[in-house]
């Protein structure tokens, strides 16, 4: 077990994922080599079973339909309010490898970081390991599941809920931009410690893997250039407004 005494929270929003997946995510938090408190946020579809787990549970009355970003922000700021020393994230369909928290804490301590990220490993919908993700580099492009924030970066948490709706599906990219614009020191462990269950249809269509028969979604991960083009098409006043709403200025 880790000798580091810092209190860590891992936040998981959920909305209709299979209970077995949520339970796997929870077990992976409980199985960390550095202890972590799991905060689950039911976004419109609360599971009564979660109340019996060794976890904190927040129940939202209706889903925010924003890929979990608002419940993620609420769970994380709840953790900040409780004085946790570090806050990580985990989607309900993914899970963490046992040394995820420990390796992020060690990397943060070694380099004096204010936010740290890992890499992720792609897994089939059925759970089997596929390969290291080629997109997420942990600095320019990171996945929310890979991210851990430390107190100087806690003010970035609200960004998840305040990103313009048009591009909220990639709120993690906005958080990345916010961290850079506000001068927060970010680093990456270069270790793949997040198990990312790939549910995107296009992923299977462009591979030689058989198409799963259930739990598939049609959303395509956008290329960063798409985000840039949308942003540049806005008027200066619109860009200034969105930047203020997100708290970047």
């Amino acid at each position, binding site marked *: 077990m880790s000798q580091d005494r810092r209190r860590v929270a891992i936040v998981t929003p959920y909305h209709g994922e299979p209970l077995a997946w949520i339970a796997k995510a929870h077990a992976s938090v409980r199985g960390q080599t550095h202890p972590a408190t799991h905060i689950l946020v039911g976004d419109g579809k609360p599971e009564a079973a979660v109340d019996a787990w060794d976890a904190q549970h927040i129940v939202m009355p209706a889903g925010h339909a924003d890929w979990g970003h608002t419940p993620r922000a609420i769970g994380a700021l709840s953790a900040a*309010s409780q004085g946790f020393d570090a806050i990580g994230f985990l989607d309900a369909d993914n899970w963490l490898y046992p040394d995820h928290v420990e390796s992020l804490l060690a990397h943060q301590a070694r380099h004096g970081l204010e936010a740290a990220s890992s890499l992720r490993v792609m897994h089939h919908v059925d759970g089997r390991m596929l390969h290291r993700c080629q997109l997420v580099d942990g600095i320019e492009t990171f996945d929310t599941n890979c991210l851990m924030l430390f*107190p100087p970066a806690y003010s970035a948490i609200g960004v998840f809920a305040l990103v313009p709706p048009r591009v909220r599906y990639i709120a993690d990219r906005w958080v990345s931009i916010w961290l850079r614009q506000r001068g927060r020191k970010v680093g990456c462990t270069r270790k793949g410690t997040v198990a990312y269950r790939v549910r995107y249809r296009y992923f299977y269509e462009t591979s030689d893997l058989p198409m799963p028969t259930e739990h598939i979604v049609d959303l395509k991960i956008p290329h960063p250039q798409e985000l840039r083009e949308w942003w540049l098409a806005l008027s200066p006043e619109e860009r200034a407004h969105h930047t203020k*709403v997100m*708290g970047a*200025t």
Partner: protein
Amino acid sequence: MRIAVVTPYADEPAEWLAQGHASVRAQGVEAVHVLVADGQPDPAVAGWADQHIVLKHRHGDGGNAARMAGGLSAASQRFDAVTFLDPADWFLPGHLAGLAAAAAGVDAATARRVLHRIDGTAAGPCPLVDGVRVVDSSGILLRPEAFPAIAVWCLAPAPVADNAVQSVLGFLQRRRRTVAVADGATVAKRIRSRAFNAPFGPTRWDDRLTEADPPDPAAVAAWWRAIDADRRTRELRRLGVT
């Protein structure tokens, strides 16, 4: 203007919550009342609240995490403004209209307050809350460009978190958000401190009296002045001011 009113609650009497809710309903302004239970949800409240959020783990932080949860949810739902109402307080007529008018063209608005005894009878205007340097948690309204301040409910430094609204105001000022003060004193503030209520004799709410006095805004400023430069830098960074 679509306004969300966020009320945190824990174990306050249902009668107080209902009074607050009725005062929101009586404003004559389109408003959605979001109730947030901090550890102790009341099924009756869930029945009449427009939206009801439950923090099953009690934070015991004077409602700060609950204000954040309701406020951020409302911001995400694209309300035009978010304001707050403490569970023991209520709005006087014209409160929301006054805040909305004051907030036109600015990022946030504040309202002053009238102090009330624990039984709900008026005791007089508050000499302390001016809406400029000192605000009440039931008397601040945020427009979208002030929504980043919602997180501050949970990021206020622990020693002064019992008066986190002062940190919210400080965040707005230091991040150059414009703040206007509404006309009149339109927040009815129920004071629960024993010392405040003692001169007026016993009431049926005496079991709800608290030994603590209301938070002293001067204590917040004094705390900031007393900490060293390194601590101040850390706290400002955590708040997102720098």
